[in-house]
């Protein structure tokens, strides 16, 4: 790995996220790191992973160097096997057709509740964020919900200011009582580690650390009392191949479209 620059925090979490996606499944991915993780998984170990994107794109294969800046644009539709309407795309999710829902988070709390709407009091907000987009719908319907975000104190808060996209609310009973019975949040992937949910309480639990990160590092960057698994594993470092692929996808080659098509047309 000597010839390759060390992974950035975002690369670390993107690669860790990509490894969670199993072949033959369907992932509804948000733009940015979740999408990049999905494209990477499809390129490396999950060639039959179907990526679906908010704007109506089912099964796209991205052109390296031209990853989409929004999930609705042509880059996100490239070589898809189906382009449909937004409602239809989301309704496949509500019907239960999507194995994974994969989103980012502005602010998130110990129950996996996500806020992408308001920092501060929603009636007198300090900061207006971009909003739900499809995130609320994704967490309400996709079978296994995964969240990817940088691990920072300001993001990992005791209680989000506003629940845009519910996780466990205040625990499994509250989630069920709210009618959220179709699916569940399963993982939060960060640049410091991999977090799962404690079944009994619905609270976040540290399951694995990124290479070189300590439990203390994680606690120092978490704004609430984080549960810790009995056996905290260490995630394998990104391989040279993972890093090279990810960077190629992100930065592209000198528009060598033909080569890419050849490679991605394999099953």
């Amino acid at each position, binding site marked *: 790995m000597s010839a390759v620059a060390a992974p950035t925090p975002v690369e670390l979490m993107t690669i860790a996220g990509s490894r969670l996606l199993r072949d033959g499944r369907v992932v509804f991915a948000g*733009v*940015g790191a979740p999408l990049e993780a999905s494209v990477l998984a499809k390129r490396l170990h999950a060639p039959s992973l179907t990526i679906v994107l*908010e*704007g*109506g*794109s089912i099964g796209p294969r991205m*052109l390296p160097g*031209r990853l989409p*800046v*929004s999930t*609705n*644009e*042509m*880059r996100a*539709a*490239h070589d898809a096997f189906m*382009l*449909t*309407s*937004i*409602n239809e795309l*989301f*309704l496949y*999710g*509500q019907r239960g057709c999507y194995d994974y829902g994969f989103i980012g988070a502005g602010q998130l709390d110990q129950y996996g509740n996500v806020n992408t*709407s*308001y920092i501060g009091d*929603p*009636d*007198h*907000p*300090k*900061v*207006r*964020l*971009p*909003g*739900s*987009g*499809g*995130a*609320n*719908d994704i967490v*309400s*319907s996709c079978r296994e919900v995964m969240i990817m975000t940088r691990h920072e104190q300001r993001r990992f808060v005791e209680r989000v200011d*506003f*629940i*845009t*996209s*519910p996780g466990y*609310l205040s625990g499994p009973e*509250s*989630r069920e009582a*709210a*009618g*959220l019975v*179709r699916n569940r949040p399963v993982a939060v992937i960060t640049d410091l580690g991999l977090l799962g949910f404690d079944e009994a309480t619905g609270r976040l639990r540290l399951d694995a650390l990124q290479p070189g990160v300590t439990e203390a590092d994680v606690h120092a960057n978490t704004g609430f009392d984080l549960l810790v698994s009995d056996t905290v594993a260490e995630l394998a470092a990104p391989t040279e191949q993972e890093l090279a692929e990810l960077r190629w996808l992100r930065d592209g080659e000198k*528009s060598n*479209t033909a080569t890419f098509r050849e490679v991605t047309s394999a099953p």
Partner: protein
Amino acid sequence: MSGANDKLMTLADAAALVSDGDTVVAGGCCYSRTPWAMLLELLRAQRRGLTLGRNLMCYESELFLATGAATKLISSWVGIGLRWGIPKVFREYVERDPSVYEEWSHLSFGLRLMAASMGMPFLPTASLLGSDLLERLPAQEMRCPFTDQLLVAVPALVPDVALIHVHTVDAAGNAQIEGPAYMDVELARAAKTVIVTAEEVVPAEAIVRHNDRTQIPGFVVDAVIEVPFGSYPHECHGRYEADFAHFDAYSEQVVADGVAGVEAYLAEVVERAGSFAGFLDTVGASTLLEQRRRARELVPA
């Protein structure tokens, strides 16, 4: 809705179909197939007090707020795109008064149009449950009359006017869209008045030849305007890529100057340009052709 066979008109004629205070919903999604020419025309016509709705909004959000053309926005997400983040002036407006913005989830917004398009006053969904969005919205929990399952009912959204940009349309308004349809089919069926701009107006027989690709029937359409590059600087699937350099320039200007930046932008693209064709001239033919070439790399003909 109209059964007439010739609905061709100018952008200015079409703007006259929009009244101050109307609820106007724009088609496309974020910076894709946005009815940009028609949105600029409403600004040129100085409409005031509109409620502007769109499933995901780009920086038209702040163009309409800053001019007073809109006093309320309805959407599920407002941003220019990952690279530029949330429009600064939009943020300022909402942080000053959150009531100018009504936030839905993407699907629940879409279901509101779908309900209207079905002639129903509501539709049920599993979205919004348990969220703080629900508390602030005119939606409400309900139980399935058969299963007792807890669901959310969202009320129909019947726009006074829909603005939709498509690839091809005939003079009667029969329209065909390439690539993702976004929410345009539901929107066309939901609204009281439908204004369609198109890259190309084609003879009726060209529509008939591919009749299983017609997505909007003429009888819901009131106005048809041919506007090549009508979404520019936003993209149109297979026709031209979004002009990110234009977004960069816009974004820098607004980050630097706030509302004054928005005003400077509009002075240029609306006032000085004089018309949408004039705006395209300021972009320049070579740029337009390059954006067309780039689109073809992503969507081969």
